[in-house]
């Protein structure tokens, strides 16, 4: 055990690969938050009056709320007045008209991350709406998408070009008063992505956004809104890495999905923000509200997430299954190492008849980390024939880590079937022994066992992400066998 422990130490000491800061002048607001800051953000972005009113209403409600304490995460109190709420990379001339005009330093950042934006985007056939800090600076493949009638743009552009869609859908899935962080986001959100897929259209490519937090002390408050009209299909990929930094950064995003009759939305996330160092110093605080609403008949929303980063993750991608026959899915792998804390799970609210939901959650804890699954499956009296299957498994590596499972199942319809199963155990000694005995190194053996453990989730990821996720997992856990 002791010799193994030393190995663990050396292997775990592997540094975060994407830790670098690009030196770009930021056009930031001074730290602090009051109505004038909210107004200033709105003015900077030339927003219509309805949006400013909406922000101010959210801000006033936020003032009445207290930060939630029910999650099993611990962190020093956050000083919301010490955060700068707006930071935009300063354009060299004006807004770039094409990818060639984008700040070369910015592009270099992507290079270091291993995402040569234009090359890779073209090769992979992926349109990338890259969010660098808070303002979108490059959007590709707009033409191809425009031909199909798909709107894929930054949130600011959407506010400018499609205010009627924003006014109609914004805040209808996650109302500004939903929770503390959603209210904060609604008041100060800087930018994000907007997708509208018109009726009957299958989006011709996977849509992807790379997030990257860059300027010091700026919380990122992204707002994503995806609408799939009747019969539309869209797959959206969200992936993120952030540079190394000692100060905790707050990230409170809101993602809203709306699926109308027969629409399908697949939302995949690979989250690899800076998790803090091996002593738990630094790292991103990730407090996200993600929710999708199946408004129409036979609509489908599928969440897939691979969470390996962030010092604290507080995230519950949920589905409200309103339409009859609608389907909700949640596939998650959450890895917590060192002093990371992950409190994640999902909510499935069955309202329509014959609604179906599936939850597969795999949690892995190593080092001193705490990994919590928290979920709610609720079947309302109207949801005749509702069906849910939940499986949440936890894998423990090391005697100092913790894994918790807190599901709630509420059933109010006698014709519903709800099944929940969960297990918690350490990595199997016999499996490890089997591999070692056949000459596989301990590290490879652990990787193999862990990817086997996570396979049910990885197979749900789009191809582009599957490889990356697998690599991320092995980096995050390297040597964590104890």
């Amino acid at each position, binding site marked *: 055990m002791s010799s193994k422990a030393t190995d663990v130490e050396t292997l775990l000491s592997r540094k975060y690969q994407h830790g670098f800061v690009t030196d770009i002048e930021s056009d930031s607001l001074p730290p602090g938050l009051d109505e004038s800051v909210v107004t200033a953000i709105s003015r900077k972005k030339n927003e219509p009056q309805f949006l400013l009113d909406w922000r101010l209403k959210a801000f006033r409600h936020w003032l009445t709320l207290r930060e939630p304490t029910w999650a099993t995460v611990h962190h020093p109190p956050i000083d919301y007045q010490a955060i700068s709420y707006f930071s935009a990379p300063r354009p060299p001339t004006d807004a770039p008209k094409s990818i060639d005009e984008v700040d070369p330093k910015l592009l270099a950042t992507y290079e270091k991350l291993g995402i040569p934006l234009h090359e890779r985007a073209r090769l992979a056939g992926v349109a990338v709406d890259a969010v660098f800090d808070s303002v979108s600076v490059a959007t590709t493949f707009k033409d191809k998408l425009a031909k199909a009638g798909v709107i894929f743009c930054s949130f600011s552009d959407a506010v400018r070009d499609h205010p009627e869609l924003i006014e109609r859908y914004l805040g209808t899935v996650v109302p500004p008063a939903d929770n503390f962080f959603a209210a904060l986001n609604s008041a100060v959100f800087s930018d994000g992505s907007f997708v509208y897929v018109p009726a009957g259209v299958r989006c011709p490519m996977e849509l992807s956004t790379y997030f990257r937090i860059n300027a010091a002390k700026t919380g990122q408050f992204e707002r994503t809104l995806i609408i799939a009209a009747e019969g539309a299909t869209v797959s959206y990929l969200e992936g993120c890495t952030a540079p190394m930094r000692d100060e905790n950064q707050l990230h409170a995003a809101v993602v809203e999905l709306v699926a109308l009759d027969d629409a399908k939305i697949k939302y995949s996330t690979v989250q690899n923000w800076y998790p803090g160092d091996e002593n738990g110093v630094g790292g991103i605080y990730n407090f996200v509200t993600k929710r999708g609403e199946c408004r129409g008949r036979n609509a489908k929303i599928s969440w897939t997430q691979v969470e390996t980063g962030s010092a604290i993750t507080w995230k519950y991608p949920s589905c409200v299954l309103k339409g009859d026959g609608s389907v909700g899915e949640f596939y998650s792998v959450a890895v917590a190492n060192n002093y990371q804390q992950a409190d994640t799970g999902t909510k499935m609210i069955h309202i329509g008849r014959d609604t179906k939901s599936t939850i597969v959650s795999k949690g892995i804890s190593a080092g001193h980390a705490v990994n919590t699954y928290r979920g709610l499956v609720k079947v309302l009296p109207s949801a005749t024939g509702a069906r849910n299957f939940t499986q949440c498994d936890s894998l423990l590596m090391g005697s100092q880590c913790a894994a918790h499972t807190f599901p709630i*199942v509420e*059933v109010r319809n006698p014709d519903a079937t709800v099944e929940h199963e969960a297990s*918690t155990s350490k990595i199997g000694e016999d499996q490890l022994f089997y591999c070692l005995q056949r000459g596989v190194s301990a590290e490879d053996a652990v990787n193999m066992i862990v990817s086997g453990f996570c396979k049910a989730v990885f197979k749900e990821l789009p191809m582009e992400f599957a490889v990356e996720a697998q690599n991320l997992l092995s980096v995050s856990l390297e040597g964590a066998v104890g």
Partner: protein
Amino acid sequence: MSAARDKDAALRSFEAAWHARPGDGIAATRAEAMRRFLALGLPSPRDESWRHTNLRALAGRPFADAEPATPMRASWLAGICAAPIAIVNGRPLPAAPARTDDPALSIESLRASIDRDPASLAARLGSIGETESERWALLNRALFVDGLHVRVTGRVAAPLLIVHSAETARDDAAVHSRVIVDVAAGAQATIVEHHLGGDGHATLVNHTTQLHLAPGASAEHYRVFSSDAHTTHFDALEITQAADSRCRQFTIALGGALLRANLSGRLDAAGAEHDSYSLLVGHGARQVDCVNAIVHAASRTTSRQTARALAAGTSRVVFNSRVRVEAGTAGAQSNQSCRGLLLSPTAEIDTRPQLEILADDVKCAHGATTGRLDPNMLFYLLARGIDRAAAQTLLIYAFLDDLLTGMSIPGARHAIEEALIAELPGADLLRAYR
């Protein structure tokens, strides 16, 4: 009472009852418990562990201590024990219960125990079940009027039946009673507690049982609730287990308007084993809220929890079970299984099987299902010429009875089955099949 409803009436009536009590040898520990209880107040749905049970209506009602009374009815479990002990409105009858037929069993009233050795009894009271979420146990420590102290020093073959009855003629009566059972090293006993009464009045019963198993001891504990349909019952059961002790616990919920049955178990030393079985029957407008919390505080400990929940009418059944494995332990094993059956569109079943694991060398699992009767089983019976109503009745009964197969006292099992059948649709049919 004034026209405006006082939302803290219950709390203030408990405080008044506390001030009216004559002091006894354990006044200091009672005062400490009361202070904590008053500081916490009554639980609200904002307390995570009470999110499915709303006490607002109860909080607005003042309560007064139930007077001493004589038992009006016999327990339907009386057949299993030659000399059952009666506790009426929290007081043993006769006041000094004695049981001489078994030298390994000694029983005295808690009042006598307090008078004889207040210091050691006071030390025995501060307990694991008195958490913030289970604050009724705190109130019980402050206000319990009397109860039993049972000591088991050897192998006791015959089961001991304790019949708790609430005999009141008022709607505002509150009964606070307590039972302490200490099973010595290597000793063995079976304790059955049967709660009944209520007499159609909205009585509040707040009972606590503390069971301690010394090294190598083994115990089987039953608590059976069959109070009247107006009774509110808060029951806290605390079980502490030393090395290599074994405990089997059955909770059978068949009565009352609101029953909150809490079980706090703590496995303190290696080799301790705990099995709990909960049969929760929601009938009419009943609310059953069963909360189990098992802590594995030592290496090589095992716990298994099995629950069957049935909800009919407008009832609501909650099964909330939490297993915690403490840091620094190795080889803990735990299993939770809860199956729920909903029989009516106005009933509700809520399950919360929770795992809190702070060590890596563990094997823990839970499974929970809620749904209707298995269509394949139904088809099997229909295909054999049994009509649908009968087939459903049989399957419902089988679903619940499965839990009782582990009972080691056949008399108790038979009596509980009889009582269970009376709660089910198609009772006559089931009796005919038996």
